[in-house]
Structures are given as structure tokens and as C-alpha cells.
């Protein structure tokens, strides 16, 4: 890196022949060092890019292995009676997970009924209002997204399940509430983002026609944002379906085909947890089968969400 401009001499040579020689020498020096530097930089680049490829391989390997292994074990456990029968007592072969499937569907359905209207209304508030209050709510939503899901389960326990609370015993509804709180910030932020994609011109055009603001929101904003709303809500559902921690101390789990949301219920994730942690191969088999069902459900929801949002992007273009 030394800044010798004229090798071997100090100061500027007086006659022009020496100057030309010096310039030539300098050029040669630059050319050589550039060649050396480029070779070195290319080598470093190759090594670094190679390391990045290795990183991709390392990050894909466990993720792909996980999905592939669950699929291979799950498919073996899967059968029609596995999906349509309730669990048998331990030690008795056969049995299925119908109670967990029904329980999960009811719990998630109720959570959606709670979270989506409130979340959409709150998103409308955020879209319509500027200022400190909206900012604070938005921040609260962002922080709530990162709250550990077990905290939401204990919250639901404290409010709905524990002694002296609103219901007072384990119930599917308490699990729905915990999942609704989990989904709420996701729904709020995704819906707000979707509504903001509706051009301001369309709002203004609607209002300029003399249409009531609520009507503009209903037929212009909500309709325009519909694909985004669907995507956001589906992703929230996909996140909630797989949760276990919020259900452990609210839903409790049940091996009976319970459909009353005020009673304890089964859930797919609880079935995986209770069977997977047992040392018996038969129980683990049930856990793998249930894990596969859950995986398919969650991936299907994510894929549908992605397809809807891709369609939205294509329309926008």
C-alpha cells in the first residue's frame, strides 16, 4: 500500500524522457499489483461464496429432513380409521385421533370468530387515525406478536380457567381465547397493511361521490384489500393451529369426542405432545401420524395464503 509514485527516485524528474520512463514503470507496477490483488480478491470471493453455499446446505438439511421424516413416519400411521376413531385406552391397539381433529377445528373456529372481527376493526382504526394513540396501538401489536405463547396460555388460565375466574374450569373456549389473543396482533398488522395498499385516490373518489364513509370503507377499501385480508388471516390461522403451549393449561385435552366448547377438548398438538413424550412405540406412532396431519394442515394453509397473495400481486401489476 506504499504510495511511492516514482520508484527509486524522490521528486519530479526534470527531463521528459526520464518522466516517460517513470510513468511507464509506475503503470507496470499498478498493473502487476492489480493483477495480484484481483487474483487474491477472486480467491477470497470464491471461498466466501462457497461458504455461503455450504450455509444454504446446512440450513436446508435439518428442515428438509424434518419434513421428510415426519411424512414418511406419518404416512405409515395414517389410515381412514386413524382419522375417524377416538383414541383407545393405552395398550389396546387401533384407535384414532378424531377427537383431536374435531377439537382443533372447533377451537380454531372459535378463535377465528373472536380474533378476525376485532382485529379488522382495530386495523380500520389504525388506517383512519394518525397520531400517538394509533402509534401506541401499532407498537403494542408488534410487541404482542413476540410474546411467548405460553404467557398467553397462562393469561387465559388466569382469566377463564383458574379458581374465581369467568368459567372456572378447563374448556375449549379458554383455548380459543388464548389462540385469539395470539392471532390478534397478526390480524391487525396484516389487515392494516392490506388496507393501506388500496390507493388513497379510490377513497377520495368514493367520498367525492358523496358516499358515506362507512360505505366507502365497505365497498372500496375492504373489497380492494380482500386478498390481503384473506392472506393475513390465513397466516394467523396457520400459526395458531400448530400452537401447543397456549392449549396445555386451558383445553387440557380429552380422548372423548367433545363438541361442547365449555368442556375440556382434544387438540392435535396436545395429542402429539402427550403421545410423543411416551417411551412406547405405539404411542410414538400415533404422535407421528398426528404430526403429519398437523403438518399437512399448516402447510396447506400457508400455500393457500401464498397463492392468494401472489394473485393479488399479479392483479396490482
Amino acid at each position, binding site marked *: 500500500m506504499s504510495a511511492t509514485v516514482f520508484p527509486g527516485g524522490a521528486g519530479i524528474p526534470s527531463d521528459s524522457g526520464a518522466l516517460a520512463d517513470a510513468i511507464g514503470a509506475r503503470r507496470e507496477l499498478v498493473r502487476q499489483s492489480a493483477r495480484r490483488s484481483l487474483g487474491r480478491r477472486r480467491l477470497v470471493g470464491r471461498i466466501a461464496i462457497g461458504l*455461503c453455499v455450504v450455509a444454504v446446505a446446512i440450513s436446508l438439511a435439518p428442515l428438509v429432513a424434518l419434513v421428510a421424516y415426519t411424512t414418511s413416519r406419518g404416512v405409515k400411521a395414517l389410515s381412514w380409521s386413524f382419522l375417524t376413531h377416538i383414541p383407545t385406552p393405552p395398550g389396546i391397539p387401533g384407535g384414532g385421533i378424531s377427537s383431536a381433529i374435531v377439537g382443533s377445528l372447533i377451537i380454531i373456529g372459535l378463535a377465528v370468530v373472536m380474533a378476525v372481527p376485532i382485529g379488522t376493526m*382495530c386495523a380500520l382504526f389504525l388506517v383512519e387515525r394518525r397520531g400517538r394513540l394509533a402509534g401506541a396501538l401499532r407498537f403494542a*401489536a408488534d410487541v404482542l406478536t413476540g410474546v411467548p405463547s*405460553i404467557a398467553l396460555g397462562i393469561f387465559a388460565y388466569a382469566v377463564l380457567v383458574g379458581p374465581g375466574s369467568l368459567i372456572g374450569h378447563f374448556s375449549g373456549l379458554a383455548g380459543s381465547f388464548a389462540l385469539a389473543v395470539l392471532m390478534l396482533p397478526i390480524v391487525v398488522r396484516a389487515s392494516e397493511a392490506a388496507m393501506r395498499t388500496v390507493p388513497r385516490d379510490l377513497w377520495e373518489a368514493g367520498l367525492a361521490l358523496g358516499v358515506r364513509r362507512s360505505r366507502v370503507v365497505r365497498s372500496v377499501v375492504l373489497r380492494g384489500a380482500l386478498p390481503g385480508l384473506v392472506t393475513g388471516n390465513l397466516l394467523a390461522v396457520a400459526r395458531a393451529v400448530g400452537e401447543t403451549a397456549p392449549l396445555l393449561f386451558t383445553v387440557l385435552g380429552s380422548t372423548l369426542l367433545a363438541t361442547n366448547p365449555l368442556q375440556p377438548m382434544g387438540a392435535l398438538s396436545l395429542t402429539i405432545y402427550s403421545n410423543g413424550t411416551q417411551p412406547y412405540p405405539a404411542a410414538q406412532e400415533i404422535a407421528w401420524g398426528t404430526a403429519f396431519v398437523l403438518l399437512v394442515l399448516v402447510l396447506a394453509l400457508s400455500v393457500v395464503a401464498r397463492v392468494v397473495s401472489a394473485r393479488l400481486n399479479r392483479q396490482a401489476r
Partner: protein
Amino acid sequence: MSTTLLEEVPPPRLTPIEGVKEGLQRRWARPGGRAYAVLRWTGATVFAVIVLGLVVSLLASSSQAFGHSGLSFLWSGTYNATKDIYPTGIFIIGTLITTAVAIILAVPIGVGTAAFLSELAPKWLAGPLSVLIDLIAAVPSIVVGLWGLLVLSPVFARHVEPFLKKIPGLEWFFHGPAYGPSMLLAGTVLAVMILPTIVALSRTALQGVANEDREAARALGATRWQVVRTAVVPGARTGIEAAVILAMGRALGETIAVAMVIGNNNALPHSLLAPGATLGSAIINNFGEANPGLDRSSIIGLVVVLLAITALVNVGGQLLLRRRLRAEGAVA
């Protein structure tokens, strides 16, 4: 339901243009039906009540434990009639260690993957790989935990942990019997779980760097890798930091998968191969059997500690993300 303009005719003393102006202003000012305003405010109020209710109810249910032992709850925990002491400090240390292992494993791999997907890979490869990783991010933690317990744990016990014990110089980290379930396994499972988050968020940050920066670096003679290292990664630094912090929040708060693979031992781990416990796994394992009163209150105290740690980390991450967005807005 729709109103006509006729209902909104301005007072006659205004000129037509002024009248239209005033009518428009009134329309902007008017929320458009009381029902709609009630709807919006209801949504916002219910949301605010839930957020406040979460904090208040957890603080109230844990007040007995904090009242009993004060701030010493943070390290020594509370007496429990049926077992012994809930050593909060041990759970906090366990949480920090497993998270640190996860971050150390996942960040270099995740950022490297993001750099490859965003900057180096050809488009036909980057697109499908990104979609694949995004989809895998949706895999429920219970499934990751099941895989960690039944597949990864035997592999660790038989191959990985004996190998690590043989590495000279690292005996302090890796000693003791190789069970499988351990702090190391928990950290590895967490790393698998946070990897897609780090990749997705860092990729977004890298893609947000202006193309002019890349072209300028290229014009100065930088190689492809030097463009990434000197122009793109520094430009996306805040975004990558935020990605790491948000992933850290997820690792700190994960419970079920950790409870399945950590071995659940309420003692200070002497090595990464030893079983341990985290705040989350301790809550899961003890809440169900806790007696009402001080016992249960102590465990809700653990929830409060966990909530405080993750909230701190997440607020930090959000502020960082916000600063980046604001900086970008100022430039644009």
C-alpha cells in the same frame, strides 16, 4: 342506506365553489356514520384492554410470589411445599444458554443463506429455495420438538456428543455423560426453529439495499463477493440486527419444543451436554401440578420474568426496525 348530495347542500350565502369546498371538508371531518366510528373504537378498545389485561392479570396472579420473596425471586425463587425451591436464577441461566447456542449456530448459517439467496444465487434457484424456507418456517414447534426428541436426540447421544467430547480444548463446554437430551440439543432444536426467521428477515433487509450501491461498488472494481461484503451487508446491517433480535425473542420464548429435548433438570448445568431447564420448560413442567396459592403464583412469576425478558428484546428489535424504516423514508 346511501345519502344523496342534496342532503348536504351548503347554506345559500356561500358561493358555489366555497360551498363545494365546505361540503368536502365536512365530509372529511365527518367520520361517516356513528356506527362506523363505534366499530373502529370498539376494535381499538378491545385490543387495548386485552394487552393491558394480559400484563395486569399476570402481575396480579404472581404478586403473591413477588410479595413473598421480593426481588430475590429473580435468583433464588420461592419455597414450594411439595418439591423444594423453584430456582428462578437457574431457569434464567438455562434460557440464556440455550438461546445463545441457538444464535451462535443459526446466525452465521442464516445470514450466509440469506446472502446467497438475495445476492449470489441465480434467480431460478433463489425463488424456489426462498419459498421452500418460508414454507418450512410455518412448521409447528411441536413437530420440531417431536423430531428433536425421537430422531435428533439418539443421534446426539450416539454420534454428536461423543465426538464433541473428544475435541481437545473444549472439555469445559463438553463433558459428562452423553444422554442426548441436553442444553446443547435444546439449543440446536431452537436453532432449527429460528433459522427460517433469520433467513426471511435478513433476505428482506439485503434486498432493500439500493441497486446504486451495488453498481457503485462494482464500478470501483469490487468482485461479486466484495460487493456483498462492502456495500450490501453494511447497508442492510440494521435490518440483519433486527432479524437476529426478533429471532432471539422467539428462541427465548419457545417452550414446548425445549421442554421435550432439554431433559428437565432443575440444577445448574455444568456442561452443555448436561440436561437443564429454561423458564419456558419449567413453566410447562410445573404449572399443571402446582398447588393453588404461593406455589402457582411462583410459576406465574416465572411467566412474568419470561415476559419481561422477551418484551425487552422485542421492543429493542422493533425500535431497530423502525429506525431503519425511518432512515429509508428520509432518503426516499
